[in-house]
């Protein structure tokens, strides 16, 4: 097998030493380790196709992986097989400023993408401060929530090229027609691109993706609004969003905001925990290419009107922290290329439970999560809560973060039990887990019988030999 | 681009300028049917006029019977199939229902005229006449037909009874145009004139006119049916007979203006008489149009404050079917005049239903449905009454004996009460 793989990707790009296999057999999640038999690092689409043909021939599972960091167990080889590490494919293939799109390979990180777009006055639609190694392609395909809810048309994913489980190349949307600019995601025939989103690499290996980009503002202001309760943020955010105010807009609880702002675990973190309010709404008001200052002025005036109506106080800082505005804008606009991950500064992993709901339901879920955490003996001041409004506030992404020391088996077990119990409770209460990773898959797909059944049928159509990431989702 | 070419226009000149005048025949029926593009405009209130999901439908027949065959579009399909011989008249007993359930309210017709030259009501009348040619009038319409043939009215009443309503005005000097002269004819209509329940309305109108020294006369026992019921139910020979007789009579008497309180008579005299070649030397007004002038001139002296909230139901034949079709021209009708009158009555607050004017919902009383399809007519009326109730009004005011009869029949047996009152009866209450 190794010989054949070597023929495909070259000798230097296949790893099968125990140390490497150990690394790839676990990630930052609490899912049980699963060891691959090899790791291959293709350089181009043709090699990926060859790998797929090999896998079909030998019925070897292939587990696509785009970056070196994983928090959710999606790249653990459930049934063994070969990990296809795509991080070498890290080129930005095209920046189309006129149509505001960018074409990227799987290994491109958010930092890399953001950096490359700067000189074109563009930004990518990235999630909240991703890990420096996170793949922009995978992150977008897996529908991680973007920070800016103001683009009502949403959906940053455009067209893509996929190596299908048959080994054939398939391009979605207008990319299928070489006479176009390849911008439009729907088609050919049907909306194929949707089958590859949220699929955890089970339906095909995406070798490039076109993403929407938006204007990178030259003028901007960040506002911070303190709140005592999670639920108190809902009405202000509904009003702000419905009035088309602001660009980035999200809510962090004290723990997560302190983690984001602090440089060191033991340095300023404690001070921040003392000074920050329980919840902070962060709202960036940004200028557009034309008359940016005027734009900021009318949006700010409208924000203040809502604030006066609802009696909340937007400020340029919160908890008296100096330089907060500058620091926040810098963090948002200049993602780090390396270094530690803010969510794991506190402990060496974060176990996140996230789902989609509506903002008026958020407080209920927060109560549930904190009660549950307390019942497992956790200090609820050290549980993270992030609320990301989506699509002008139509819905929101809620994420609870439970820091966990992966080196402590006791803590691992405790957090895992909490994770399972809380997830089940949240699901029963209508929290919508759109991205069923790890143990969620079973919880979700048991309940959605026809969806599950249909998904299985489709998987057979796309991947009759079940070679792509078997054991994930309902496959 | 065609700059260098001669302008390319349709070969069929009907696309260049639709000949709305002239007789409506099979060719025109086919044109209306053939140019149906299935746009579904005939099924809904004009989109710009939709105010809620609840009151967005325009066609009672389609709303009730659901199948597309029972809509304007379906009737176009039917007409085309029958004309082109794809369907035979006796292929399906449902053809009768498709053609005759319709209340002929013209809702579809009016909505379609927003987007094309669709003369749906004329097409329906043509289709019904073709049906009657083959199978005779509907059994449910037979009594009415016989009555017209026998008595020149639709209510099986002797001609002599026509004059009964005037007895209440004895001594007030009402003119009989058969003996006396006046430029203005008050054309009472069969339904107001012969119904004990409704005749009070025309007595009230006559009183108002007399009190204001309006010089007018009536035809008394010589008044004939206007021809509306046979015209709508496919008995076109009877319609023609009545129309010709009427026109001749009006001309002979030198009548210059006809005023009628009946919306059905109004629409027939004003629009359908255009199909009759006989020259017409008179104009036709609804009493509301005439009295509105008096109200505007402040000639009506109200004495009482009524303290009531009302809503106005636009009768189809007074509104969207009250003017001949002229492509491009507003679908005008007698919409503002009755509203003006209502607003002039002290203590009357007018609140509007969602579907009004040319996009009003039908009362259920038209087109022979009230006699032919009673349950459907009642259902249609109740839909309208529900809409009226939603306005918060205490009563529906209208000015058509058919609407009044149908809405009252609809209200019978309903849990919530919604009274239907004639405009002029309400007016008199304040005098």
């Amino acid at each position, binding site marked *: 097998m190794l010989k054949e793989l070597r023929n495909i990707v070259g000798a230097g790009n296949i790893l099968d030493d125990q140390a490497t296999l150990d690394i790839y057999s676990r990630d930052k999640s609490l899912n049980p380790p699963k060891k691959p038999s090899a790791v291959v690092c293709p350089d181009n689409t043709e090699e990926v196709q060859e790998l797929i043909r090999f896998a079909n021939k030998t019925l070897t599972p292939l587990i696509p992986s785009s970056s070196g960091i994983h928090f959710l167990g999606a790249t653990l080889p459930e049934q063994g097989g070969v990990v296809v590490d795509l991080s070498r494919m890290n080129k930005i293939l095209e920046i189309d400023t006129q*149509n505001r799109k960018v074409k990227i390979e799987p290994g491109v990180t958010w930092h890399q993408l953001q950096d490359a777009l700067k000189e074109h006055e563009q930004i990518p639609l990235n999630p909240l401060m991703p890990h420096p190694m996170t793949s922009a392609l995978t992150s977008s395909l897996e529908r991680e929530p973007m920070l800016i809810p103001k683009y009502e*048309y949403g959906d940053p994913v455009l067209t893509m090229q996929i190596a*299908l489980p048959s080994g054939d190349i398939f391009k979605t949307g*207008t990319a*299928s027609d*070489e*006479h*176009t*600019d390849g*911008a439009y995601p729907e*088609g050919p*025939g*049907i*909306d*194929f691109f949707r*089958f*590859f*989103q*949220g699929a955890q690499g089970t339906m095909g290996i995406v070798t490039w993706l076109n993403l929407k980009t938006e204007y990178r503002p030259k003028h901007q202001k960040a506002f911070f609004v303190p709140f005592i309760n999670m639920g108190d943020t809902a009405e202000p955010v509904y009003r702000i969003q*419905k009035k088309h105010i602001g660009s980035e807009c999200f809510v962090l609880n004290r723990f997560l905001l302190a983690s984001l702002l602090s440089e060191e675990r033991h340095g300023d973190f404690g001070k921040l925990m003392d000074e920050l309010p329980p919840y902070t709404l962060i709202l960036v008001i940004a200028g557009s290419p034309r008359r940016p200052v*005027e734009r900021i002025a009318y949006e700010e005036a*409208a924000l203040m009107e809502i604030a006066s109506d609802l009696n909340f106080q937007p400020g340029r800082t919160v908890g008296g922290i100096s330089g907060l505005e500058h620091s926040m804008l810098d963090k948002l606009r200049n993602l780090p290329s390396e270094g530690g991950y803010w969510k794991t500064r506190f402990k060496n992993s974060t176990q996140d439970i996230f789902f989609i709901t*509506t903002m*008026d339901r958020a407080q209920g879920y927060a109560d549930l999560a904190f009660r549950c955490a307390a019942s497992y003996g956790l200090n609820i001041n050290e549980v993270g809560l992030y609320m990301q409004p989506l699509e*002008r506030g*139509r819905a929101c992404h809620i994420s609870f973060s439970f820091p966990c020391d992966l080196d402590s088996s006791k803590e691992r077990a405790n957090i895992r039990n909490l994770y399972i119990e809380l997830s089940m409770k949240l699901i029963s209460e209508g929290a*919508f887990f*759109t991205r*069923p990773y790890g143990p969620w898959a079973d919880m979700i797909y048991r309940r*959605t019988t*026809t*969806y599950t059944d249909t998904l299985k*049928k489709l998987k057979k*159509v*796309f991947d009759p030999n079940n070679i792509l990431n078997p054991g994930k989702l309902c496959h | *681009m065609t700059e260098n070419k001669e*302008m*390319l226009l*349709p*070969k069929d000149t009907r*696309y260049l*300028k639709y000949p709305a005048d002239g007789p409506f025949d099979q060719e025109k029926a086919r044109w209306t049917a053939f*140019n149906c*593009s*299935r*746009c579904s405009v005939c*099924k*809904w209130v004009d*989109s*710009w006029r*939709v105010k809620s999901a609840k009151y967005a439908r325009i066609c009672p027949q389609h709303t009730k019977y*659901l199948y*597309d*065959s029972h809509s304007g579009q379906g009737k176009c399909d039917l007409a085309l199939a029958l004309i082109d011989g794809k369907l035979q008249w006796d292929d*399906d007993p449902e053809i009768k229902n498709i053609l005759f359930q319709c209340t002929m309210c013209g809702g579809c017709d009016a909505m379609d005229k927003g*987007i094309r030259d669709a003369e749906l009501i004329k097409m329906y009348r043509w289709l019904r006449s073709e049906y009657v040619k083959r199978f005779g009038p509907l059994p449910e319409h037979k009594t009415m037909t016989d009555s017209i043939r026998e008595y020149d009215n639709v209510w099986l009443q002797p001609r002599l009874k026509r004059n009964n309503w005037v007895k209440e005005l004895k001594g007030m000097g009402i003119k009989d145009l058969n003996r006396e002269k006046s430029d203005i004819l008050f054309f009472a209509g069969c339904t107001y004139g012969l119904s004990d329940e409704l005749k009070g309305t025309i007595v009230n109108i006559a009183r108002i006119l007399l009190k204001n020294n309006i010089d007018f006369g009536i035809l008394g026992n010589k008044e004939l049916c206007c021809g509306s019921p046979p015209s709508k139910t496919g008995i076109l020979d009877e319609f023609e007979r009545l129309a010709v007789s009427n026109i001749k009579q009006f001309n002979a008497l030198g009548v210059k203006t006809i005023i009628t309180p009946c919306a059905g008579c109004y629409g027939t005299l004003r629009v359908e008489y255009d199909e009759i070649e006989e020259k017409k030397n008179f104009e036709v007004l609804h009493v509301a149009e005439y009295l509105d002038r008096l109200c505007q001139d402040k000639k009506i002296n109200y004495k009482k404050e009524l303290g009531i909230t009302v809503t106005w139901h636009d009768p189809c034949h007074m509104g969207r079917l009250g003017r001949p079709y002229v*492509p*491009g021209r*507003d679908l*005008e009708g007698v919409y503002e005049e009755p509203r003006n009158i209502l607003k002039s009555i002290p203590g009357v607050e007018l609140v509007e239903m969602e579907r009004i004017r040319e996009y009003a919902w039908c009362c259920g009383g038209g087109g022979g449905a009230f006699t032919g399809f009673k349950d459907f007519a009642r259902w249609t009326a109740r839909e309208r009454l529900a809409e009226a109730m939603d306005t918060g009004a205490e009563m529906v005011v209208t000015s058509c004996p058919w609407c009044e009869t149908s809405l009252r029949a609809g209200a019978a047996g309903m849990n919530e009460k919604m009274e239907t009152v004639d405009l002029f009866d309400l007016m008199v209450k304040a005098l």
Partner: protein
Amino acid sequence: MKNRDRNNEQHQQILGAFQTALGQENVSDGPATMNAYFGDWLPPKTLGTSVPPEFVVLPNGTMETQAIVKICNRFKIPFIPVGSNQWSLSSAPNRPGTVIIDCKRMGEIHEIDEKNMFAVIEPLVSLAQLHAEANKRGLYIGSPEASAQSSAVAGHLFQGMWGVGHRIGVAYRNILGIEWVLPNGEILRTGSFSQDPACGFWGEGPGPDLRGMLRGYAGALGGVGVVTKMAVKLHPYPGPRTWPCEGHIPNQVSILPEDRFSWDIVKYDDLEGAINFMYEVGRAEIAAVLQKWPTVYYAWWWANSNEQYWETWKKRTFQDNVKNAVGVSLWGFTSKKQFEYEKRVLEDIIEETGGKRIPREIYDLWVPRTANNWIRDTNGSRMMRPSGTFLALRLPTDTLRNSIGVVRTGYEWVNKFSPPILDSDGPDWIGGYDFGHFGFGETDFPVEKTPEDLGDLMNKLLGMTKEDLQNGIENGIGPFLGGTYHAMAGKVFKYDKLLKGIKKAIDPNLVSNPPHNIPVED
């Protein structure tokens, strides 16, 4: 191509099964009723053979629809779901024994969540109904050019190139949860409808998004079952709670409050200039509607009669004044200040790009009666009026830039076949979507509604589509033709195997409007 005789034993068995499921009054097999369900907007036979359905059924709700679909599977008879049945293209039966599933008893708006801005609707709910209910609550959706009287569910499944797509994307990107009877009779609930308790707020997942099967450039044309319930997005609206409209049909006018809404029609020397302007407006993140209409649209939507249409056309009222013009509507979502800000930005862009406003008299003539049709349409069906019908050439969606080339080649084609194509002045519609991320092109032109002219032209159109395909050009026309096209295009664009696989997987008996969305050989 003949249905079973009504006395045929199997016909009676099927009829009985339907009647048991729905009650006698909700099932018809009468020829007069069937006659209303097999035409489309073109004269008979233009699009090929069509046969009346054998049954029309009126299920109420998901369970009854499921019962019907299961009966169709049991007897292996094809069914076609229809919404409002407007302008049907793919809902005319093309094979004998077809059952039309007419959704006329499914007209409820189940829910409008004002706070979270979505509505849950059944298939008969029209876009106008939904628009009206949304407006009451300070929300809006779009309505495509033809027209707001169509089913909102069908409209969302089928493209929905509405005017407000500049800001909210086209209709089918506004679908949230779906309840959907698959061709095999199973009930599929997608997005947040898949959860218990079900709610409509989110469209994707769980996991891979099965909406992918349903949507597409022109919907699935009834080939993947029946959607019985759908949650759709609504958006914040700064307009009045009741749609403004004055006057009478056919001359009604609609003017939105001038302190929050405006229309500008800006013209350029050439198409490139117009498209450059559209890019700049998109980049500036202003406006709610951004559309470059062809001359013929100005005349179609506006004219109150054929006579007015042809008189103004002969006088070149629009050809001389609105060629290469872009319609842009600014909305004051945030405040009057925002509205004023956008006006200043628009002014800058017009000046920079060398645009000129169309003459005031043309603006005054056209805008009040016509412009707001791009927010809530009512005049769209007027495009049939001047010659009985129209046809569309190519319908590419990609970038704005890409649309230019496609509509240009469209001019050439239209020229080549005029006559029978009537005068149209270069019918180049280019719509801007997603703040200029996408452009949609369409070449619509008037043709006289005669079977001869249209039949001949349809053959040429199909010929051109085939030629395009041979050259690897997609251009969007095909999806409207459904199965036939997918059979051809699927090979070129390499999706035929996947699509056939999907169709077989969910429709093993091939009962859901075959040959849509792709023909499957056994």
